[in-house]
């Protein structure tokens, strides 16, 4: 369940985060600051706050919630899909921020060179900026995946701990401790720690992950 959630969250988030990060990296002014602040919100907000409002929004107490229930026939809360929505919002900064840093590190000279050769903005992004910032794409994916695996508050609020549907490793660890089953809790915790260490090591060790980032234009004068 944990793995399924993390894979789905990472895949969907990358699709959302790529254009969003490119917009932030190339934007300026108040709109950019506002979007950055909203993206960063889950970093400072207690996950329970996000979970609470999502729960309310998905439930039958509010108009959007009723509309949603009318559309899909059942409440989104306490389902895998509901959990997915929460995860996506909660991990958004972990997907977006490495990408913004990676895109901003691509020297403007390369972007102008591509435009000056007739490339439209979409092609500048896909053929120049993205390949040059590919390390940050991998960093973004690994961080999102790892963070989703380690998520607790939002999952607890939204998922309701239903075995086989919404129970993730971090939640089952909490259950095991509540039941004073420390041996099993220990096994679960070790798995989570090992996974996190491997993921972070990958970010810092993998050849090419950071290599192309921040490379400056080869200026010959």
């Amino acid at each position, binding site marked *: 369940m944990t793995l399924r959630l993390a894979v789905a969250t990472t895949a969907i988030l990358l699709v959302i985060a790529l254009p969003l990060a490119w917009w932030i990296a190339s934007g300026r002014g108040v709109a950019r600051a506002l979007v950055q602040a909203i993206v960063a919100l889950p970093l400072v907000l207690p996950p329970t706050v996000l979970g609470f409002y999502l729960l309310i929004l998905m439930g039958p107490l509010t108009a959007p919630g009723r509309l949603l229930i009318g559309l899909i026939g059942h409440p989104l809360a306490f389902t895998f899909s509901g959990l997915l929505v929460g995860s996506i919002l909660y991990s958004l900064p972990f997907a977006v921020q490495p990408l913004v840093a990676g895109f901003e590190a691509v020297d403007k000279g390369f972007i102008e060179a591509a*435009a000056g050769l007739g490339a439209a903005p979409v092609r500048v992004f896909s053929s120049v900026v993205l390949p040059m910032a590919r390390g940050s794409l991998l960093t973004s994916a690994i961080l999102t995946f790892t963070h989703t695996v380690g998520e607790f508050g939002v999952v607890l609020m939204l998922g309701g701990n239903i075995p086989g549907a919404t129970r993730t490793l971090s939640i089952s660890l909490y259950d095991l401790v509540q039941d004073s089953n420390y041996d099993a809790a220990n096994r679960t915790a070790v798995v989570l720690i090992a996974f996190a260490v491997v993921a972070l090591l990958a970010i810092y060790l993998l050849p090419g992950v950071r290599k192309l980032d921040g490379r400056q234009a*080869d200026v010959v004068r």
Partner: protein
Amino acid sequence: MEGRLMLSDSMLSVKIEHRVGALTLDVAFELTQPWTVLFGPSGSGKTTVMRAIAGFLRPDHARIVSHFYGNDFVMTDTAKRIFVSPHKRSVRVAAQGATLFPHLTVRDNIAFGARSQTDGTSAAQIVEESVERFQLQGLAGKSPSMLSGGERQRVAIARAAVAAVSVGSGCLLLLDEPFTGQDLQLRDELIEELRDWLTVFKTPVLSVTHDAGEAFQLGAEVIKIANGRVVQQGPVDEVLAQERIRLLDQLNATRKESRA
């Protein structure tokens, strides 16, 4: 001067007023020749003019219009709030410094702006022709990081020329300090190749330099600019007469030295 008479109509009208730091740029000129050189010392505003034509910069006040085959294409008109994106302009650019894409091979860099033609010529054929013309056969498969500074510059020129030729007639090629740092013999060969190729496609060139020797080698129309103003425009022999005397003096001095 048959070349001068052949294309006497203006291909590009430029009028720019722009403040950058301490410099107030205020220039107006028409491009009428196949190759025009924007000549001036560093800090005179040459690169700002190029960036404005390319669409990398929105000047305070400007009107930049290309006229190819009787069609006016307004690329910048601040009074009418017109500003065309760089990639939609009838302009292709090799900016200052060879900004080759580090994740692509030399051949893929050159092919970046290549397009197949309506007459059936494929993009790959245009790329191969440029590789041959600019003698890049030995470099085509390499990564830009393996090239010397001069080689990178040569590839950057080939890349921009391929993009301009791909647009076909009715496209201006902008070159900012394209030959700086090339050894002189190679530079002259490069200029001849480039000129021959672009003539076929009737692609006009506006190049920037602070090197009088390069301007004479090009034998082109010269627009001399200083402190943000156009000082003079005309054939290189007229506009750079003083610089010519200085160059000849230098040449004589080095000859005497080598004899001694």
